[in-house]
């Protein structure tokens, strides 16, 4: 009967382990990352007794978590995708709501040019001139406020980068610590502790949401984790912290560096960190640059038209707007004393890219920030500057080999956009000169003129151009000069362009347009600047440049939102698959509980029966 008792006890113990595991599963039903645990039983080795093998009961073989490495890997990768998509969607939603708000540049442009046209209808009216300046101020503050919102977002991204790196470091430290505990526990007992593995897996999943990682399981039950292309984050029980460091060109901007100090910003993808870097480089920077391009185009075209006209006092129109030119930043590691001066010479070929000019010891080479080479002309001197992409670059000083400069043609332009005119009478509504054909002219030439250099001291001096033949003219009785049809005649800073052929004896007199308070000819031209293409080879006007920026931002938002939906679905699928193996199902646990309860009761009955049998035997012996 002793066998029966011990068999019964083994059943009791096994059922207890089962019920304990069920209780553990039920208790952890809401624990994130918990994998349900399963008990496996095995029959004990039988005993040879009386020519038979008699069973001796049950042993609990193992308590293991229900787990699939493959499904967990998919879950981690889905978490990295989801972390990236969520962050990207949240950031792009923010920038989208910034451009959909009341600070709409197109409306500000329309109001400004509306005021300019109103002034064209009443060029001498002080109120309409004042309105132009007021609208110009509103336009400038729209530029700066949009740019300010972008900068604020950039500040937020910078802060989030720091926080994410901190979070990554604390998670990888925790994973490293768990690696150590798991290795020790598995070494002592031969069996890794399920709950510690679960904790570590949950941390790995969280880490994957923060940055794209690759996980390599080791034979000693530890996990090695790498980021980027091979930068170790966790090896064995050791964590290698990431860090942030100032960018080599721009100390206000942070890069991500590995534990060795090398910059790995460009190699990070996935997770919150990847999304932050992606957003900064591919949404925010281009938007800021595009807005800057619009600001530069606005200031350049309007100021140029101002310079073609005369203000209420008859002087050549001065600039109305000011805007910053390219930003040049020397690399922090530059060894030489080289300097670089960059200016925009051609808005038509200006791109939205940033550039790096590098000295290799013998020559300078220009690359865009993606690393593609950009061809330059010129020699880099003030007389013959390097020219590329609408920029002119003048190098000075003595650069050391390896020195480099970064040029951002339009990045800071929008924030610097300002109105520099304070006197409404300085708006150049009138033409500075009048050109009158002589009444005796017999040719078909209709004169038009432009201002080439309004600062010429003789600009306002009266002159006359007399044609001695259709191809020859003289100015103020000077020597005969050859007239080429279509080529403007320039003198004293003005240029006279004739539409149609002059005849011999035709004369044109040029004089200052004095007292012309009512002249609106340049005001009309100023009004037309609104639709004047200037960027992209003259195809894009300021308003269009802004709407391109809106499309870029909108597309980024739409893509991010679609991506978020996709990644959510991918994550749900991975989670469903992983949970189908590892998740706790309460109905299942209830059934298991009943099962173990019944087994326990049955084993107890076995013991009770054994006891009864023993009693029967004792009673029989006593009665003898």
């Amino acid at each position, binding site marked *: 009967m002793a066998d029966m008792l011990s068999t019964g006890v083994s059943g009791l113990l096994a059922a207890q382990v089962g019920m304990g595991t069920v209780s553990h599963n039920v208790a952890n039903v809401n624990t994130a990352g918990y994998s349900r645990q399963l008990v496996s039983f095995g029959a004990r080795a039988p005993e040879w007794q009386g020519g038979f093998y008699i069973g001796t009961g049950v042993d609990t073989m193992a308590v293991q978590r229900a787990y699939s490495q493959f499904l967990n890997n998919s879950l981690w990768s889905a978490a990295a995708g989801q972390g990236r998509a969520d962050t990207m969607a949240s950031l*792009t939603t923010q920038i989208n709501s910034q451009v959909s708000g009341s600070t709409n540049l197109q409306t500000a442009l329309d109001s400004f040019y509306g005021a300019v046209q109103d002034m*064209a209808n009443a060029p001498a009216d002080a109120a309409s001139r004042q309105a132009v300046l007021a609208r110009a101020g509103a336009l400038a503050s729209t530029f700066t406020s949009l740019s300010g919102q972008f900068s604020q977002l950039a500040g937020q991204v910078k802060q989030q980068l720091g926080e994410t790196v901190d979070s990554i470091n604390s998670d990888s430290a925790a994973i490293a610590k768990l690696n150590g505990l798991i290795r020790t526990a598995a070494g002592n007992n031969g069996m890794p502790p399920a709950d510690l593995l679960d904790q570590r897996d949950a941390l790995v999943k969280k880490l994957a949401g923060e940055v794209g990682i690759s996980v390599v399981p080791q034979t000693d039950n530890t996990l090695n984790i790498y980021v980027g292309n091979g930068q170790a984050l966790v090896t064995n029980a050791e964590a290698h912290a990431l860090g942030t460091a100032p960018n080599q060109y721009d100390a206000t901007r942070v890069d991500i560096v590995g534990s060795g100090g090398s910059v790995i910003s460009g190699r990070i993808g996935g997770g919150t960190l990847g999304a932050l870097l992606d957003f900064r480089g591919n949404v925010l920077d281009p938007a800021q640059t595009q807005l800057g391009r619009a600001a530069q185009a606005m200031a350049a075209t309007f100021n140029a038209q101002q310079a073609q006209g005369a203000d209420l006092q008859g002087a050549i129109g001065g600039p109305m707007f000011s805007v910053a030119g390219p930003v040049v930043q020397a690399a922090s590691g530059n060894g030489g004393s080289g300097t670089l001066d960059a200016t925009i010479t051609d808005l038509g070929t200006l791109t939205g890219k940033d550039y790096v000019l590098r000295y290799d010891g013998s020559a300078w080479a220009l690359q865009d920030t993606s690393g593609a080479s950009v061809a330059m002309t010129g020699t880099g001197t003030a007389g013959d500057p390097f020219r590329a992409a609408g920029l002119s670059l003048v190098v000075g000083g003595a650069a050391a080999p390896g020195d480099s400069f970064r040029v951002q043609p339009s990045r800071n332009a929008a924030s610097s956009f300002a109105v520099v005119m304070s006197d409404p009478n300085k708006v150049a509504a009138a033409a500075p000169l009048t050109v009158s054909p002589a009444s005796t002219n017999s040719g078909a030439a209709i004169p038009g003129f432009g201002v080439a250099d309004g600062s010429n001291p003789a600009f306002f001096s009266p002159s006359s151009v007399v044609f001695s033949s259709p191809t020859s003219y003289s100015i103020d009785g000077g020597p005969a000069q050859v007239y080429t049809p279509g080529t403007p005649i320039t003198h004293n800073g003005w240029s006279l362009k004739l539409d149609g052929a002059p005849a011999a004896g035709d004369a044109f007199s040029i004089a200052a347009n004095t007292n012309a308070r*009512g002249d609106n000819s340049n005001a009309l031209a100023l009004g037309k600047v609104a639709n004047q293409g200037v960027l992209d080879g003259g195809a894009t006007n300021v308003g269009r440049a802004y709407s391109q920026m809106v499309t870029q931002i909108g597309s980024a938002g739409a893509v991010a939102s679609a991506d978020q939906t996709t990644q959510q679905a991918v994550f749900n699928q991975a989670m469903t698959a992983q949970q189908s193996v590892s*998740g706790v199902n309460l109905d299942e646990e209830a059934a298991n509980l009943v099962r173990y309860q019944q087994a326990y009761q049955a084993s107890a009955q076995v013991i009770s029966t054994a006891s009864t049998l023993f009693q029967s035997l004792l009673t029989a012996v006593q009665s003898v």
Partner: protein
Amino acid sequence: MRVSTVWMQQQSLNTMLDRQSNIATLNQQLSTGKRITQPSDDPVGAARALDLGHQIADTAQYQRNITAANARLSLEDQSLGNVTNVLQRVRTLVLQAVNGSQSDATRGDIAAELVQLRQQLLGQANSQDSQGEYIYAGNRTGSAPFATQGATTYMGDEGQRMVAAGAGLQVATGDPGSAVFANIPTGNGTFTVSAGATNAGSVVAGATSVSDPSASPSAWDGGGYSIVFTAADAYEVRDAGNVVVDTGSYDPAHGGTITFRGAQLALTGTPVAGDSLAIAPSTNQDVFSTLQNLVTTLQMPNGGGADMQNAMNAQLMNLDQAMGNVTRTRGLVGARMNTLDQQQGLNNDLTLQYKSSLSDVQDVNYYDAVSQLNAQTTALQAAQLTFSKMQTSKLFDYLR
């Protein structure tokens, strides 16, 4: 497949959250009436909406410009109407003055009225608009273009203010005083006739014209000529070099027309041998000088003779030129206003078209949105019902 209890609940919850988010979006679309609430809703549409908004603003500005231009042109039209009235009164008075029944005294009265009318005309020429700008001063709108005392030299310039009435359409909204009042050709527009100062006869030059610009053997060449009567019934035409280029006969009893080189002069009265008529190419004379000349002529003592007749006839022709000039300018003003009206209509059509395009791009389709809202609400209710059912069917509930 196994499902985990918590994950099932979570997914059920996520479904509800998604539905609620969709309902919130639809709610926002319905309450704002806009399909695009931020650029990411439709990046291309958002840019298109900006573009259309710009076109609408541009066109609205053109309409404002047209309103301003119409105000200026109406003012000019009204002013030119006044000018016409004044000149018509002048003409009536001049015709009265050349009547033979007038005496020096009555001519003096007419002259006095003409002086008043000239002042009135100067007032019109120095009209200002509501902003105090002189409307006939070209671009020099800050000062009066014609002096009210002494010589009436035009002091404005030839500038003409334009207005942008549409894309690529500029319309003039004024005329310089030089074109309206000052640069008026004398005589018949081609040449003038004046009687010699020493004429003793009573020949008076009436209507003149260039009747045949391609007359042969030689056409009108714009030169200066003189008609010299060699007798009461015979004349010679001499050119500027005093060379006789034509001769002819004249009937002093009935008057007649002298024609040479395509030019025609209607003459009346009896010349005396040696009397002459000078023919000179037209020059420009402002209307104020014409009026002043009329006054001076009418104030001549012992008037009513051929010399006054000739002088009055010459100035009357100048007056007619001035009236014709004002009428033509008024016609131009009318044509411009007409152009502006047409452009205004065109701009209205464009605005309507842009607005309808803008509505297509950015406005929400209410039927569509409301039916989507219903569908989403139903789906949310279903998800909520499912969730509550799921909570009540647990095995643990039955094991008691």
